[in-house]
Structures are given as C-alpha cells and as structure tokens.
C-alpha cells in the first residue's frame, strides 16, 4: 500500500516554511520600504520618482541615462532605487514633441511625483476666415459663379470671444425706477457680478479674490489673474493636496510671475496643474509645478493674439482678422 505523505517530509516542509517566513518577511518589508545594500554593504533607504504622463510612447531618462520606453498602455513611469537626499534630472521625450525636463528631489522612502507637459513641435492650424465663397448659378443679370458670404464657423467662434470673464461671474438682472414727468418708469438692466460658491467663500475672502480677474476653479485648485501674474492655490483643505502643492519645495500658493505681463489664461484641457497663458509674445502652456524651472512650451508665438479653449478642448487663436484652430 502506498503510505500517506510521511510525517518527516511534512514536518521538514513545515519548519522550512516557518523559517522562510521568519527570515523572508522582514526582508520583504525592508525591500518594499526601499532598503538596498549600498557601498561596503551599508544599508541605505532609497527613494523614487513617479512620472505621470498622458502621452504614450515616450522615452524616459534620468540624469542622462535611459530608464525605459513606455508603450501604448503603460504611460506612467516608476523609477526606483534612487539614492536619497539629492536631485535628479528627469527627461521625457517623444518624436515630434517638445521634451519635458524637470529636476526633482528624492527623499528616503518617498516617491516624488511629477506630471509631464509636452506639446507638439508643430501644430496644424486651421484658418477660419470671416467670409467664405459659395458657388452661385449665373443669372441673366450676373455672370458670377461664386459669391462671398459670412462664414458660419467664424460667426460661431466669435461668440466665444465676445466676453472674457471668470468662472464665477454671473449676470444679475436689476430693475431701476425713475420718474419721468411724474410717471414711474422701470428700467431693467443686467450687470455682471462675482458670486463664489459656499465652499469657496472663506478662501475668496482671505485671498481677496473679488479684486482678481478670471478666477477659475478645477478639482480643488483655484487660480486667478492679478497684476499680470497667475496665482493658484489648493482650497480643499480637508482633502490631501496634489503633489504640486505638497512637495517640500513648494508653497501653498503658486505663482506664475513672468517678466512679461500675462494678459489672460485658461486651464490646460483636463488638467488642474497646468494653464495656457497669453502674453504679448504669444500663447503658451505652463505647468504650475514650480520645482526647478517650469516647463513652458509655445502654441504660437506672435504678437497681438488672444485665445479661447472651447468646450471640446480646441484651442482657438484670434489675430484680429481670422481665427486659427488646433487640437493636439
């Protein structure tokens, strides 16, 4: 008869497993916390860098050394085993796109986060003129085969450029009364008024947001324009702040303070850590993250422009004659 598994084998395996568990658990925990063997078998606690990216097929370098090529699905990069208490230069590049470079500090047992901002080197702009030519059938009085008519796309885009105001400006209807020859005459007018939501009131009051222009909010980050500079702050104090407001080198309020006056700005599509700004020199994408030098990348560099981001994330630039639109 074939005997059951022998007690000796069972006990040996059991005690071996117990031994592996006792030895292996602290080793695994130590490894998970970033402990690695350094020079002369000394133990150092390393840190890491995590690069968030919306771009696929990027290549990541750190201090000039290749780290990895990202594919279509895995866009983010975790760089581990970095010696702590120093900064690293992270370089992300992709063909036909501007590179993103950042110097990031690494602390023991911590992972420093950053988010890539990369624009194409060349945009394809679509020109939208004020009028467009449509074919007509020649008549007895006219031999013309086409005629100029107002471009409906141009008209539609013009609507977006009529006003330029912050997110919390609302129209309030008011009625004033006057007496004209003893007759009371009511006059209705609409005035623009800033109305902050309840959860922003305290912050708005302390930061005097009513004195600022173009106040906007996205996912807990409030931004505003004052004296030609863009400010941003995290307002959901009860929640954990995003990394750009949290890391040691940043302050609670971020400031984009250029020599050029910023004329207007809007949020970068789908992000609350980057904005698109307008100066006399052109239109640029700027990251809020102020660790090392900010990545600033141009959409278009020409004087005398203004721009809008449409709800479908199309960038529209107006040069006084035609609209130019692009998506990226």
């Amino acid at each position: 008869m074939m005997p059951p598994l022998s007690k000796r084998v069972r006990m040996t395996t059991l005690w071996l497993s117990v031994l592996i568990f006792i030895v292996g658990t602290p080793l695994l925990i130590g490894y998970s916390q970033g402990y690695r063997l350094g020079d002369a078998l000394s133990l150092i606690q390393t840190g890491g860098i995590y690069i968030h990216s919306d771009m696929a097929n990027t290549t990541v370098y750190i201090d000039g050394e290749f780290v990895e090529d990202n594919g279509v699905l895995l866009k983010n990069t975790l760089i581990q085993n970095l010696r702590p208490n120093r900064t690293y230069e992270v370089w992300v590049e992709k063909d036909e796109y501007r590179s993103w470079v950042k110097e990031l500090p690494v602390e023991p047992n911590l992972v420093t986060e950053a988010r890539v901002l990369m624009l194409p080197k060349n945009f394809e702009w679509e020109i939208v003129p004020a009028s467009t030519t449509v074919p007509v059938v020649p008549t007895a009085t006219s031999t013309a085969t086409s005629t100029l008519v107002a471009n409906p796309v141009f008209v539609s885009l013009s609507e977006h450029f009529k006003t330029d105001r912050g997110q919390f400006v609302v129209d309030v209807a008011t009625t004033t009364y006057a007496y004209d020859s003893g007759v009371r005459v009511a006059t209705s007018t609409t005035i623009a008024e800033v109305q902050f939501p309840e959860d922003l009131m305290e912050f708005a009051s302390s930061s005097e947001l009513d004195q600022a222009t173009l106040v906007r909010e996205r996912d807990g980050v409030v931004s505003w324009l004052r004296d030609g500079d863009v400010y941003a702050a995290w307002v959901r104090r009860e929640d954990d702040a995003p990394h750009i407001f949290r890391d040691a080198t940043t302050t609670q309020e971020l400031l984009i303070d250029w020599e050029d006056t910023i004329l207007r700005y809007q949020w970068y599509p789908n992000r609350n850590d980057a904005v698109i700004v307008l100066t006399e020199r052109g239109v640029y994408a700027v990251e809020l993250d102020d660790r090392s030098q900010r990545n600033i990348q141009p959409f278009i560099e020409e004087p005398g422009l203004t721009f809008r981001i449409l709800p479908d994330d199309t960038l529209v630039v107006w040069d006084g004659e035609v609209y130019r639109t692009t998506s990226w």
Partner: protein
Amino acid sequence: MNFVETPYFHVAHARDLKGRDRVLFRALEFFPGVLSWGTIILIVTLSIYAPVAAAYFIIAFDLYWLLKTFYLSLHQRHNWKRLRHNMSVDWQAMLETLKYEHVHHLVILPFYKESRETVDAALRGLAESHYDRSRLLVVLAAEERAGTEAEAIATAMEEKYRAVFGSVLVSIHPDGLPGEIKGKGPNITYAAIQARDKIIRARHIPYKHVIVSAFDIDTVVEPNYLNCLTWHFLTTEDRHNASYQPVPLYNNNIWDVPAISRVAAFSSTLWQMIQQERAEKLTSFSSHAISFKALERVGFWQKNMVSDDSRIFWNLFLANNGNYRTVPISYPVSMDATFAPSTLQTLVNVYRQQFRWLWGVENLPYMMFGFIKNKAIPLKQRVYHTLVQVEGWWSLATHPLIILLLGWLPLILGGEAFRDTVLSYNLPYITRNLMIVAMSGLVLAAMIAFSFMPKLPEGDGDRKRPRWLRPLHGLLFAALVAPYVLLLPVAPDAVTAFIDTYLEVFVTISLVLLFVLIVLSCMSNRQLKYIGASAQWLLVPFSIVLFGAIPGLHAQTRLMLGAYVGQFWVTPKHRKEHTI
C-alpha cells in the same frame, strides 16, 4: 459519567441550554464571526489610521499565503499519486489476505425529491460492486414530506434490486417528528434505526461487523470501492473508533455544468485531497462510512441540526474522550456537481450548497463547548483541534478577501502621506509577484483536476453550440478586425494616435477578444469544451470569494446573530439526459 449521557451531547445550539451553559455556548457561537469580522475590520481600520502597519501585515500575509500554497500543494500532489495508486490496486486480492467474509455493508441512501434516474444510478453503482452483494444491505431512505412519488420510487427500486443485494429496505421518514429539523440527519438516523430493527437484529448480525455508509443519493461508487473500504476498516487499529472518508469527485455531470460550478466542485475535491494527507485534521464530510457499533452507541446522527456529516465526527470524538479519528481511504466516490436548468440558477444553487457546507461552522462552538465540559480528553488534543478548527474557519472566510480585495486598501484609504511612500508603490508589485508565484499551486490543482475528469461523452460535441460561437460568426469577427490589421502597416502613426487619443483600452481589449473569438469559432464543440475546462481555472479568484469567503462569512454571521439554519437545503439534482 460518560459524555454521551450528559445533556450536552446532542446540543445543537445555545438555545438548547440554560443558565451559564447557554451563555458560554452563545459566546462560542459568537467567536468565529467575531474573529473573521474582527480581522476584516482591523485591516480596514489599519488601512485608514496606520496604513504602514497594514502594508506590513499584507506583505507578511502574502508570503504566508505563498508558503501555505506550496505546503498544501505538496499534500495535494502526494494524494493525487496515492489516489491513482489506490484506484489501480486489486482490492479483491488485497481482501483475500484477510478474514473479511463477516463484514456487512449497510448503505443508507437518503433522498427527497430526486428523480428515479438519480436513485437508480446510485443503486446501479452498488449493484456493479465487486464486493459480495449478499452482504450488502441497502436502505432507501425516503421522506414522507416528499409525497407519494418518492415512496413510489423507493418501492420500485426495492423491487428492481431486491434480488441483487442481501437486503433492500425502504424506510419512510415521518414528517414533523418532535426535536427534528427537516433534513438529512433525522432521515438517515431513522433509516439506521429501521435497519437495526428490521435487518441487523433480525439476522443476528453483530453490530461490530457492520460498516455504515451514509451516502448522498447522487453518490455513485466504483466497483472496487466497498472492497477498498472493507480493507481499510479491517486493517485499522481500533477500527470502531474511526470514520472512513473517501474523496468526493463531482464527476457524474461534470461536463454539463457551467465552468464556475466545475471550479467550485473541484475546489471541494482538491481540499478533501489535501486533508486526506493530513489525517489528524480530517473530519467526516458528505458521503462517509462509520462502524455501526460506534454509531449505535451515540444514537446515530444528530437530528436537530444541519451539518450532520461533520457533527457525527465530533459526537464520536467527544464520546470516546478524544480517542477517535478519520481514516482517509484515498479512493473516490462520484457525485453530482451543482447544476440547474439555467446558469443563474446554477450559480444560486452553488452558493446555497456552499453556504450549507460552510454552515458546518455550527460544529465549532459545539466542539469547543465539549472540550470545556469533557476534561477526559487530553488537554493537548483539545488545544490542537481548537486551533486547527478555528484557523480553518477563519482562513476560509477571510483569506480570499485579504488576498484579492483588502490587500489594496492601504493604497485607497491610506491617504496621500502613505501614497507618497516607496512602500505604497511597492505593495501592489510585491503582492502581484508573490501571487503569480502562488499561481503555480493553481496550475498543479488544475492539472490534477483535469486528470480526474471523465472523457467528454460521445455525442456531447454534436449538441447545439452557442449562437455567438458558430463558424459563420468567425467571419464576422474577422471582418471587424480586418480594418485595424490593414490600417496598421499603412498608417501606423494614425492608428497609434487614434488608439492613444480615443479608445485605447477599449480598442485593445476588443481586438484581443475578437482574435480569441475567431480562434474559438473555428474550433469544434469538443475542442471548445476542453478549452473551457482548462480556462475555467481563471475563475478561481472569483470562485474563492463568491463561493468561499462570502458564504463563509454569511454562515458565521448568522451563527453569531443566532439566526440558526433550521432546515437542510437539499441541493436539487439535475442532470442532462445523456449523463443518466
């Protein structure tokens, strides 16, 4: 006073006791639920307030799980070899070396509303047995509450097999007897008493010469099973102080049932195989055998609770002051996997059956209470069995949840301060990698299970295949894939950009699925069935949560709340025509 004579012996739940005994028993009923829920709550709490500690715990747990998988796989592999060896042994020849002619087998076949074909299949298996059938005493244990149809089936089967076996007795268990639940325990006890009075005593067969097999009605034995059982009975020292446990294989209808039901069924088989190599932890389960002498002494199976199959082990363990064990016979009996006419109903039935099995946790307070009251059992044994049983019920209800769900909690609930640490980034990697290594245990389990599956019945492949998997649809799937395939070399940038920008995950998954569908569409039904039987193991992570942890927690919570299960849920037995 022997423990059998105490008022505690046939206690089902705390409500059967009074005073301090009731309080103690009630506290013990709380114990498994509190332990399991406490573990879950502790991990959630740690994940919120001390995520680093929670991460340490999870890493340690992952390693523990991996080592446990290897350890149990070792047992599983050995039992697989032993099982196959035992199936190849000439048990008749083995028996010839012993004096065995005096041994009688009393086989009790309880049934409720199962079909005539199911009852007939069980009897046919016994009729094909190589053991001397004149010493085979069969009791068809029908329920009065099942109506006249059950009685008619029993009578018809009695007539059909009367000449085949030494005796065929029909017992009709009266409905509504005081002190009984509606369930299998009261029925088989009633049947055993009927057999004692009408056959065993009438024929003056000594109790010690009778082995009782309490089968589920879907149990079909191999021709050599009774020989194998008899050999183990006769060669076991102190044979009346032991239960004899075969390995349940749910093979009767295994090709008919959905994959998730197959996985649940095989999980039960594989666990029993592991336990067969750890006999000191083995208790009786489902179809099992016990000496009549031992059974009679304790009044047969308990009639006031659901988990009679495992309770009888603890009854006998306590009655014999710890001098009782289960002998693994490492020989299979074939049973039905849970099956219903619709997949949804099958899933519901699988859950209900698993819940009924896991309601076996009601034996834990009984065992612990018995250990407190019966000091004649050596302390070492009491402590050992308590630890083994508590760990078993606790791990069953919590470990799948920890592995698959709770392990991620520190990342979700730990807050930004934790999420910034290297530890938080490494936690999912460590868990994933250890679980991938642990998957080797699953691969071994799948191979073992596959080796036990019967050949796909002839003609099974000719039946109607799913509408969406016909060859014609393969062309349609190919047509859907073609544009992507054609576009890829022509305009790779455009395609990549499109995928990047819009539908990355959707498109990727769709493409993979479509390719899989094309391949599957080109296969025959038989090939599809075998592919399904291999791929079914991917369902294990869901299965151990849905049909392990959740019904386990469900049962422990009900026990904790005193919402006792008062009726034995009889798993409906459905088979497709060709399997009958």
